[in-house]
C-alpha cells in the first residue's frame, strides 16, 4: 500500500459520484415527465368515461349496424403493433415489451403478418434479430397528444382496410400495475369485438342521424380514444420504469461511494501507520547504537 492506491481510490470515488449526479438528475426528469403525464391521464379519464357511456348507448341502439371494422370471423393475418420508447436507461422495460411481442408472434405462427414498430429501441433490436418489420415510426409520440393518437388510429384503420394480408391488428404495450411493477399486455385493436351493450337507461333518445349512421360517425373517435389511452399507459409505464431504474442506480452509486470512502480511509491509515513504524524503528535503532 502506498500513495498510489489512495489516488486510485480517490479517482474512482470521483467518477462514481459524478455518475450518481447524472442518474439522480435523470430520475428527477422522469419524475417531472411522469407528473405531467399523470395530469394528462386524469383529464383524459374524465373524457373517456363519458365517451364510453355514450358509445355504449349508441351501440345498444344501433341493432342493424354493419361495418368491416366489426369482428365477424376468426382473423387469419395479424399485424402486431409494438409500443416501445425511444430512449433506454429504463431497466428491462423495452426488452420486456419486445420479448413479449416475439413470444406472441411465435404463438401466432402462420397467422402472423408482421410488426408495426414504434420507438427506436424496438426498431434497432428487431432489425438486429432480423424480424419482419413492416412499418416503423421512431422519435414520435414522445409526449402523446390526442391528435397523434387519432391520426395513428386512422392510419391503422387504413392498413386494416386496404391491405389484403392484414385482417387483424393487435397492440403490444407495457402498462404500470403499480409504480414499481411494469407489465406487458396485448390488446385487440381491430376488428372491434362486439361491445357489451350496457344500455340500462330507460329513457328513449332522439338520434340524429340514425343510430347506425351515428355509430359510423363516432367509430373513428372511439378508436382514437382507445389509441390515446394505450399511448398514455405505455408512456406512463416507461417513465415509471425509468424512474425506478435511475433511483436504483443512484442508490447503488451511494453505496459504492460509501464503500470506496471506507477503503480510501483504511489505505490512508495503513500508509500513515507504516510511516510511523518506520520512523520509530529508525530512532530505536539509533538509540541502540
Amino acid at each position, binding site marked *: 500500500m502506498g500513495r498510489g492506491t489512495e489516488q486510485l481510490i480517490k479517482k474512482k470515488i470521483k467518477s462514481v459520484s459524478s455518475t450518481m449526479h447524472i442518474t439522480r438528475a435523470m430520475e428527477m426528469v422522469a419524475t417531472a415527465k411522469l407528473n405531467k403525464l399523470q395530469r*394528462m391521464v386524469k*383529464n*383524459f379519464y*374524465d*373524457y*373517456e368515461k*363519458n*365517451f364510453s357511456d*355514450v358509445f355504449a*348507448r*349508441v351501440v345498444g*341502439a344501433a341493432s342493424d349496424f354493419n361495418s368491416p371494422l366489426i369482428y365477424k370471423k376468426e382473423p387469419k393475418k395479424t399485424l402486431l403493433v409494438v409500443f416501445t420508447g425511444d430512449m433506454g436507461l429504463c431497466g428491462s422495460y423495452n426488452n420486456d415489451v419486445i420479448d413479449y411481442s416475439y413470444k406472441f408472434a411465435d404463438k401466432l405462427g402462420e397467422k402472423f403478418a408482421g410488426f408495426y414498430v414504434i420507438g427506436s429501441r424496438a426498431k434497432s433490436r428487431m432489425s438486429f434479430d432480423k424480424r419482419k418489420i413492416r412499418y416503423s415510426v421512431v422519435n414520435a409520440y414522445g409526449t402523446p397528444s*390526442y*391528435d397523434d393518437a*387519432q391520426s395513428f388510429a386512422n392510419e391503422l384503420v*387504413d392498413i386494416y382496410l386496404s391491405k389484403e394480408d392484414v385482417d387483424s391488428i393487435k397492440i403490444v404495450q407495457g402498462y404500470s400495475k403499480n409504480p414499481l411493477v411494469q407489465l406487458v399486455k396485448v390488446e385487440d385493436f381491430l376488428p372491434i369485438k362486439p361491445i357489451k351493450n350496457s344500455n340500462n*337507461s330507460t*329513457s*328513449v*333518445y*332522439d*338520434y*340524429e*342521424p340514425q343510430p347506425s*349512421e*351515428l355509430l359510423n*360517425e*363516432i367509430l373513428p*373517435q372511439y378508436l*382514437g*380514444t382507445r389509441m*390515446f389511452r394505450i399511448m398514455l399507459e405505455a408512456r406512463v409505464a416507461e417513465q415509471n420504469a425509468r424512474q425506478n431504474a435511475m433511483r436504483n442506480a443512484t442508490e447503488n452509486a451511494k453505496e459504492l461511494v460509501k464503500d470506496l470512502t471506507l477503503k480510501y480511509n483504511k489505505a490512508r491509515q495503513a500508509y500513515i501507520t507504516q510511516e510511523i513504524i518506520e520512523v520509530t524503528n529508525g530512532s530505536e535503532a539509533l538509540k541502540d547504537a
Partner: protein
Amino acid sequence: MFKVRIITPQKRVFDGEAVFVEFKTVEGAMGTLQKRAPFLGALAISELEIEKSGGEREKFAIHGGIAEFSQNTLTILSDTAERADEIDIERARRALEKAKIELKNAEDEKSKKDLEGKIQRATVRLKVANRK
C-alpha cells in the same frame, strides 16, 4: 337552466349552466332549451354558442364529436373545442390558405378528404374568432 359540459381529451373546456345552446349536427342546425327529450347526435365541425342566464353569450369552435342531452345535462365530447379568445387568427388564416392550395394539387381521395376537413376547421376557427 340546464347544465352544459364540454369535454375534450385534454381538459374540461366548459362546465356551467346555460339557458340556451345552439349547435350543428351533421344533419343541420339545432338549438336546445332546458328539459329537452334525451338526445344523441353527431356534431359537425361548427360553431357552438352558449347563452347563459344573464343573456351573455359565449362561442366555441367545435371539431366534430358527439352531443348528448340527458337528465337536463348537455354533454359535448369533442377532439377539440376552442373559445373565441383562444384561437390564433393568423395561424388559422395561414392554415386555410395552405390547405386550399394543397387541395387544388391533391390527387387521391383520402388526402382530399383530409384537406377538406382542414379547411372546415380553419373556417370555423376564423368565424368564431371574428365574432366574439
